[in-house]
């Protein structure tokens, strides 16, 4: 079948394992050449910030998982504009090498265009 999939990434990194396990599921899909897109929304946008030093709390970097995605053909991330604004994060601060960041205004329309949505 196929089923174009959207991974809805709405949790902050490190505080819970969901952000990490969500990215692992996305990596698995991408490795199997399934079509999967990512939408960072709500606290999920915190995954994209730079200067993360998770070694200070004895955790592995989750940004490293993000940086691995372009190697699997994931070269575009959707990011919710109002989630950024609400949290005082300027869109230009978001930079992932090899990835085009597309800020979107209407997440509902984007979500409805997929056959499957995985929430993390």
């Amino acid at each position, binding site marked *: 079948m196929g089923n174009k999939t959207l991974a809805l990434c709405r949790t902050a990194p490190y505080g819970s394992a969901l952000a990490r396990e969500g990215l692992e599921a996305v990596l698995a899909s991408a490795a199997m050449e399934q079509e999967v897109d990512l939408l960072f929304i709500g606290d999920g946008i915190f995954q994209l910030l730079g200067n993360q030093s998770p070694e200070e709390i004895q955790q592995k970097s989750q940004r490293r998982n993000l940086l691995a995605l372009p190697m699997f053909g994931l070269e575009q991330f959707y990011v919710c504009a109002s989630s950024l604004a609400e949290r005082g994060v300027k869109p230009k601060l978001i930079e992932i090498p090899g990835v085009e960041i597309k800020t979107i205004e209407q*997440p509902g329309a984007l*979500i409805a265009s997929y056959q499957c949505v995985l929430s993390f």
Partner: protein
Amino acid sequence: MTLHLVSKSPFSSSALRDCLQSFAEGDALLLIEDGVYALRHDALQTLQNSAVYCLEADAAARGQRELAAIVSGIKMIDDAGWVKLCTQHNPIVSWFR
């Protein structure tokens, strides 16, 4: 169109608010588990013309069945109704945090 499942209380979680920010015209909302407390929350009023459902067993468990009956525009459904909603909509998005 999308079916949104909200399972957390709008008084302690942003699940409902986040869902509503991602709600498109024609989408449907089903309140389950602690999501049924949305019956007591203002946020639902922004959805007056949309399809809003509430899982009756979860409302009853929490002593909210009578309230659900009088909140206008909310349709109470059972498990079979939930299954039917899932066949009528796609994708199905869960807001559980």
